[in-house]
């Protein structure tokens, strides 16, 4: 039988056991360890705790709230056996190469379109590369081709730049066409 991690706590059997995760709004989620481990942050906690891990007392997540963690869990369930994603960029322009998403992933982001920023921040904190980079790509997709006014409206961002500051940005950006 293969042991997967340090301290002898991790094994395929352990992945089938439940662990309680507590979000910052004191909601408890009972999750299969194999699913929770899609998050590197949670996986590290499990490994660090080793044999002293008390599955029923809960792992605290002070930076994520219940509603967002629920959405994150949906992703983890679907990606529990997925291979690590490969992040690539153009060697000259440094622009990230865009990922091709599955129909499930496209539908997932369609469903949670208004929560993309929260999802990206949660994925960043929980260290879930696939969710993090895919959400960032989705946000970029929303920005692409839209005017600054449309972007502000879409994300509820306050227009706090003065007209002089905007004129200066346009002046110093020679290639500006907006």
């Amino acid at each position, binding site marked *: 039988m293969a042991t997967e991690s340090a301290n002898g706590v991790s094994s395929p059997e352990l992945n089938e056991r439940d662990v309680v995760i507590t979000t910052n709004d004191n909601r408890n989620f009972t999750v299969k360890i194999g699913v929770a481990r899609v998050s590197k942050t949670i996986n590290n906690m499990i490994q660090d705790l080793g044999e002293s891990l008390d599955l029923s007392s809960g792992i605290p997540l002070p930076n994520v709230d219940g509603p967002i963690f629920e959405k994150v869990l949906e992703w983890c369930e679907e990606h529990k056996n997925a291979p690590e994603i490969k992040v690539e960029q153009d060697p*000259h322009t440094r622009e990230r190469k865009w990922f091709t998403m599955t129909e499930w992933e496209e539908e997932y982001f369609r469903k949670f379109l208004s929560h993309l920023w929260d999802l990206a921040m949660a994925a960043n904190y929980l260290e879930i590369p696939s969710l993090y980079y895919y959400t960032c790509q989705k946000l970029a997709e929303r920005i692409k081709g839209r005017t600054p006014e449309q972007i502000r409206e879409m994300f509820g961002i306050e227009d706090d730049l003065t007209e002089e500051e905007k004129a200066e940005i346009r002046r110093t950006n020679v290639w500006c066409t907006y």
Partner: protein
Amino acid sequence: MNDVVKEVFKFLSRKEIEKSQLVSRYWKNLIALSSDELPLRSLCVWACTYDDSYYFMRDKEPGCQVVKYPQFSVEDYHLEEIFQNCIVDRLPITFRTCAQAAQTVVNLVKILKQTNRLVVAITCTIDIVERITELEALSHLQPILELIQAKEIRISINDFCYILGHTRFFNSGANISQITTTIGFPPESVPTEQHKKQLVEFLSGSRFLKRIGISFYSKLALQKADSIDILRELIKTFQTCEKPKNFFEEIEFFLYFATGNPEFFCGFLTNLGLELIEMSNTNQRGVLNSYKFQRSDNWMMKIELSLSSQNDETGHIKFFIARKD
């Protein structure tokens, strides 16, 4: 939050990033602070006027404006703004009005180097229209090659032959690892016997260049250039040379004409008298035929004939040199 927004920007082109500066002060400041990590604009530069008095530049992204600019001067600080957060995708070096044009390009390259935020040109085009003496051409080419960080040089076969005897220029400070050369329409582009000999010597004796591409733009050019002779010499030299490791690792011949006919390819190599070790057919798509032969010391030359696609008339003959362990 900073990390997330920055990561989102990394998926966007420079044009989109600059637009995003107008969204809010937070976005503007973050973009300014993260400039070294965010994507760069890929810029096409080309000289169009006959006397090179104007250069034209355009963002490679579709729908971007073209900027017309007079001759580059090192003192022109406006140029720093133009090239801010850009890479120059292709830098033309045109020896029309030789000294003047060369100085213009040297100035441009100096400006690119001065601005740390810039990545210097990756492709260099040399188009020697006006016949000038070999020494003149070389004297102008050398400082440019030394300044530039281009990885590839594109050059006509005549001009390539011009500099064949002076390969030290590629050794001295230049980072060129790839040469793409073109055989155009005869008779002016046909290399002489001396040039052919030099070409083969160059291919077999270069320790610093890893790849060469040779293009034939017409069947006539291919025939007139006696390219079969060149290939035959190339293979013979590989078979008999003392240091096969000094050979180019990859030599590619592009054929831009009716190559939908696989028999032409096969006949082409049969004429070379090659002994076929291995052959694979993929129905005119991808690799058409592949030939391999090796020396007694296990150094091997693999030759591949390929078509880009079923309807594409572009064909490639690729030579790969490797040691078979």
